[in-house]
């Protein structure tokens, strides 16, 4: 019954018909594009930010069908967007978003990868403690105190990451916030491999007491 909803649905269908070149449908900041149509009630100055999460849904157009619908009142598919819903005011919508950033952690030689949420760390110290925990799951940590204290400095492994440009970088060189923004995945690289590429040793220490 909601014509706002049906407007949104028809726009989604149209976009999908264009084919799935994701670059073309990728959301960029700017004034609302003409193809989207003008939404009644757009708050002045915030019109570019509201109601334009549609294209983030377009990536998973194919999966649109598998949402549950109950029999009585048909709820909206989770991929559809409704004007003014959830009821969060315009200021709050724009002021805050969560800082969840889950990145894969690969440990050379390990049978499977792990994931960490960079947003839950205040800085490098906490990240390295977490990596230590992950690392010790994969190695025979035994009773050797040295291994427990500084496993990553045993010259066995180097902490690296892939940045936005796709380059392998050493963890710790740039300020934490910069690292947070550009890190795509983390790899604890065997030093033997690193040395072949003339990589420097990681200078970072993570003392257990500060974890």
């Amino acid at each position, binding site marked *: *019954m*909601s*014509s*706002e*909803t049906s407007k949104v649905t028809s726009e989604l269908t149209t976009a999908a018909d264009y084919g799935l070149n994701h670059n073309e449908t990728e959301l960029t900041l700017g004034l609302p594009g003409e193809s989207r149509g003008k*939404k*009644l*009630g*757009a*708050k*002045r*100055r*915030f019109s570019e930010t*509201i*109601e334009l*999460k549609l294209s*983030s849904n377009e990536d998973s157009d194919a999966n649109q069908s598998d949402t549950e619908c*109950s029999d*009585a*009142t*048909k*709820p*909206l598919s*989770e991929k559809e*967007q*409704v*004007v*003014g*819903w*959830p*009821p*969060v*005011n*315009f*200021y*709050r*919508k724009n*002021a*805050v*978003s*969560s*800082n*969840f950033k*889950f990145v894969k952690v690969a440990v050379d030689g390990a049978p499977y990868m792990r994931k960490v*949420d960079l*947003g*839950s*760390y*205040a*800085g490098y110290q*906490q990240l390295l403690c977490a990596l230590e925990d992950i690392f010790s799951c994969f190695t025979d940590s035994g009773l050797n105190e040295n291994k427990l204290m500084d496993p990553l400095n045993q010259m066995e492994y180097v902490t690296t990451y892939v940045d936005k440009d796709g380059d392998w970088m050493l963890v710790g060189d740039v*300020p*934490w*916030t910069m690292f947070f923004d550009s890190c795509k995945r983390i790899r604890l690289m065997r030093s033997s491999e690193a040395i072949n590429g003339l990589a420097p040793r990681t200078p970072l220490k993570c003392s257990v007491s500060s974890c």
Partner: protein
Amino acid sequence: MKLLQQSMDPNQKRAKAVDRVDSVDTGVASFDSTRMCPFPDEVLERVLSLIDSHKDRSSVSLVCKDWYNAERWSRRHVFIGNCYSVSPEIVAARFPRIRSVTLKGKPRFSDFNLVPEYWGADVHPWLSVFATAYPFLEELRLKRMAVSDESLEFLATNFQGFKALSLLSCDGFSTDGLKAIATHCKNLTELDIHENGMDDLGGHWLNCFPESLTTLQVLNFASLNSEVSFESLEKLISRNKSLRVLKVNRNISLDQLQKLLLQAPQLSELGTGTFMQELISCPITDLKTTFSNCKNLVTISGLWDATSLYLPVIYPACVNLTFLNLSYATLRSGELSNLLQHCKSLRRLWLLDTVGDKGLEAVGAHCPLLEELRVFPADPFDQEVFLGVTESGFVSVSEGCPKLRYVLYFCRQMTNAAVATIARNCPDFTHFRLCIMNPGQPDYLTKQPMDEAFGSIVKTCPNLQRLAVSGQLTDRTFEYIGKYSKKLETLSVAFAGSSDLGMEYVLGGCPKLRKLEIRDCPFGNGALLSGLTKYESMRSLWMSACNVTMNGCKVLAKERPRLNVEVMKDEGGDGSEAHKVYVYRTVAGPRRDAPPFVLTL
């Protein structure tokens, strides 16, 4: 309470006003033995001037003509919940000696972009009348009003003793308007700018406060984005020793905050700037000491970007905190838990759902005095990343915080059983606002509608004043509400109900209902008209994307001339649908400033 309580006859009121004006003009206090009241007017006025509550004042004004007049003359503050329910001229005629005005404009759903731009609620006509009627106006508090820079300049230059300005969720002005206020209001005690749709053209407005200003008590610019001159701010703070509320914006760093707090240890409410800094010049212990020296702090907000790195500096101040607003800090459960262990006195807590259910367990464990909890969604439109909080977190809080009265809770899943448990644990709810973010979603375990959840709330909580429902709901929910919720004043409904009966139950049942806002529900003309005799006892009704038609609205308008029945025209549609309907009682007649898309029937 409200300006217009029961008697809605404008002529009757005007007559009384005219009577009194005459007798005052003669300059004589007449003592008439035929009057009911044995006291001279001045005595009665003096006694009544001690009454603050609006509800009480409304009651007083209805006793008899003398009391009505005495109340009129002794009233200093007027509260107008709907700016179109009355005109500024009527207000000025009835209350000659107002010093403080609170004015609310647009319907609440305008916060969510459901009200088109240029709808109205312009404050200027009010200011024009007030300039003549209340030249000594001291306070103006506006919510959801359209405010222009010209209006702000007019305010600043036409009211010599003006002291306190509060703008909440308003729009249409810029920092230029703030410049005018800062420049001209020599006795300013309060400048509270909160979450407005304004143009931030820069932080120069802060420099406009004159060196001579020393009366400031409240300064809130937390929601402005531009950087202000720290030097100006520091000087302002240091010479305004009465400052008790200071809320700065995100651009103020931790180092700068430290300096400000050294100048203002007397603060009772603090909104910090960013709580993250790569390199900090003063050690953390200094910051901690500074906070421990702020003995009066009861409220902390801001805390942008806060993490476990710097949060501990506020621990010394936490022991006295009654209100902690963490709704801009993306904390996780561990950080919150560590923080809350120091906050035993907390009464009000606002959070982001990044803390998860585990974080809410910490709330239940450490804050036994908690009365208000609001959990906002960090990513309301992106469900992929993080589930947020669930029914389990809510239950944990209810178990540890039996004094909960006010809850606003955004979640992605809920069960009837959980809400029933919560109601049992916290029977004192006065405000229960549950937002299950996927519209029309059932109990995720049983797949049943959420009717029993809200049923248990209204049955168990006799003091419920405000209710917002969500999830898949049939008419049964509304049957419960109408039957059990005798003190309900505000009800918000979205994507719910099965038929007209739903709305009819509510309109037939809730005797204290004042505000009803409905969107995307299958309620039609039958439902709308079932409230024919009720709307005049309410402030307003909002219905959008329902099944109401123009004909239904026309019938309502014809039957009830003292209501304004306004329909907002939609771009598409065939014109017979009434897509957005706003109905409210008024003594001012139809709007004269309505834009073309608002039709008053």
